[in-house]
């Protein structure tokens, strides 16, 4: 455990300074905002390619909004900081999250979110590279179980996120939900599909993707 960090003066002083009254507190908040803005610019910068129409001041506006929102989140959750990491690492994650969500939503602004469509076909289309009969059978069974075993909501989320590549934050905004709630729906759908495939005698390995 990183317990040593819990007594590091720098980490304690960040929290104390942010809670301080008057000029000291204001200075700490300004310093924190500058750090959050740096993190937000970093995230907007690395995602710039995703948003073709994000030009000129648009990216800076997004970074500023993300830093402002992150500052409010950090100050609201100050009691949650347990000192298990550096304060700056803890604070950065709020700015990165705000910036990433804003960029993803901007990238999908005005675009239709495909919920169910031809993505189905990719699961059973003939593979020019040639695939084994067993794999073809598994994919056909998967497609059937997506239709049969899942609720309409589970199917909608699974197809949009895993087959159509819709960012989960974008889908959450369109459906009036949250990343966490939609991911739970996706997780439940995956569990159902795994169980259904196992009942049909297919062996599905765990942990197949490298990050």
């Amino acid at each position, binding site marked *: 455990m990183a317990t040593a960090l819990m007594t590091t003066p720098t980490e304690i002083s960040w929290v104390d300074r942010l809670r301080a009254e008057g000029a000291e507190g204001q200075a700490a908040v300004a310093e924190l905002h500058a750090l959050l803005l740096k993190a937000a610019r970093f995230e907007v910068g690395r995602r710039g390619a995703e948003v073709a129409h994000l030009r000129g001041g648009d990216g800076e506006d997004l970074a500023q909004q993300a830093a402002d929102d992150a500052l409010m989140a950090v100050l609201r959750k100050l009691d949650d900081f347990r000192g298990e990491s550096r304060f700056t690492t803890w604070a950065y994650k709020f700015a990165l999250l705000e910036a990433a969500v804003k960029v993803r939503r901007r990238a999908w602004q005005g675009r239709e979110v495909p919920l169910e469509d031809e993505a189905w076909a990719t699961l059973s289309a003939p593979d020019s590279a040639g695939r084994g009969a067993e794999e073809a059978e598994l994919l056909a069974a998967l497609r059937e179980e997506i239709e049969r075993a899942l609720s309409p909501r589970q199917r909608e989320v699974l197809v949009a996120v895993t087959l159509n590549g819709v960012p989960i934050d974008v889908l959450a905004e369109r459906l009036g939900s949250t990343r966490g709630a939609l991911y739970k729906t996706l997780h439940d759908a*995956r569990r159902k599909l795994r169980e259904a495939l196992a009942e049909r005698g297919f062996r599905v390995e765990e942990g197949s993707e490298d990050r």
Partner: protein
Amino acid sequence: MNHHDETLGRVLGPGGPELTCEQCFDELDRYVELTLAGEPADERIPGMRAHLEGCPACAEDFRSLRDLVGREGG
């Protein structure tokens, strides 16, 4: 890994126990620092790796925080 293996991986996810998105966010800073320090982050925070394999959005948040903090000297 061919195209269909990737599709299967995305659809079926990692399997096994994993954190929720909320738990992932709560632990993200500690996980990143453990990773950058070369500590056994996956042993310290079970279920994190599986979640990052299953949730593309949280995986991107992880990579961003790791790269930002790493750039500053971890």
